């Protein structure tokens, strides 16, 4: 029997956080966008236990300012690629620098210093990830995907797909379909 579920990741995360923080007897307040405010100083030992406990749920505590900024840059890029129906028509550099209130030069340097990739490559990777989803989950054609992701042409999208994955979009789709058929059998 197969059953479909619908879930709210945000809600799930908040509940997990609440349960864990209460388990450790920590006084806290949950703020928006993945921020937690602690009401009092937390002993190092409890802090690392909490870190371990949250790790199990795939929740990572970021305590270094730079890694927080990197995460914020990544989140902004993902939001830009996923949540807007269309990517911004202004340049990506001014979009990021406006959103984060920092110069693009600074953002771009700190990003490549800490992630082994550049912002430009990271955006391409996220766009191709979205293209993959649109192709297999929503069954869009390449023309539709290229329009949705603001590519100037289907050829440009195909080229970037091939460069990022080493596969053509149609081969990619064939592999996913074959894998799905295998698990059904």
């Amino acid at each position, binding site marked *: 029997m197969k059953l479909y579920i619908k879930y709210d990741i945000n809600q799930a995360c908040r509940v997990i956080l609440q349960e864990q923080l209460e388990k450790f007897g920590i006084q806290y307040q949950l703020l928006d966008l993945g921020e937690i405010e602690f009401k009092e100083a937390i002993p190092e030992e409890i802090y690392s236990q909490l870190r371990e406990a949250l790790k199990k749920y*795939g929740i990572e505590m970021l305590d270094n300012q730079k890694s927080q900024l990197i995460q914020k840059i*990544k989140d902004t890029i993902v939001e830009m690629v996923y949540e807007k129906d269309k990517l911004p028509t202004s340049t990506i550099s001014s979009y990021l620098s406006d959103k984060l209130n920092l110069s693009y030069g600074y953002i771009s340097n700190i990003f490549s*210093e*800490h*992630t*082994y*990739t550049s912002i430009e490559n*990271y955006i391409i*990777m*996220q766009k191709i*990830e979205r293209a*993959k*989803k649109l192709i*297999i989950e929503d069954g869009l054609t390449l023309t539709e995907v290229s329009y949705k992701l603001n590519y100037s042409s289907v050829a440009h999208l195909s080229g970037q797909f091939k460069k990022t*994955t*080493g*596969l053509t979009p149609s*081969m*990619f789709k*064939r*592999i*996913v379909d*074959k*894998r799905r058929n*295998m698990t059904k059998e």
Partner: protein
Amino acid sequence: MIKDKSPINIMLADDDEDDRNFFNDAIKELKINNNLTVFKNGRELMDYLEHPNTILPHILFLDLNMPSKNGNECLKEIRQNSKFKDISIAIYSTSSAEKDIEETFVGGANIYIKKPNDFTNLKKVLKEVVNINWQFHTSGLNKDTFFFSI
């Protein structure tokens, strides 16, 4: 340059001693902080992976032609065990036929590497593979649709 505290764990199973040494040398030259563990064949690898105390690798490089359990057999066994679902598997092959590439991905591999024929290329390929895998790992991307052929 990079002060990342958590290293990337890499494993390699290859029966050819020269290839293992080249791989080791190439990995050493990567800027990314890493731990490499090397095996001479598939059986050694699988015994190690199945040991409960083993720290599982982020990425595993498998040579296809090995005595006592070849790369395809390892791939199959690993993909049948949900304990190993987070491991990215990179297959090393001498073929560049589209059919072989497709079959490998359908069988559960994430990365297909046409064996480079010189050290400079090997370094370049490994750098790209390790980096892209790192992006998938650190950005929580969907491993089920992670394919990279080089």
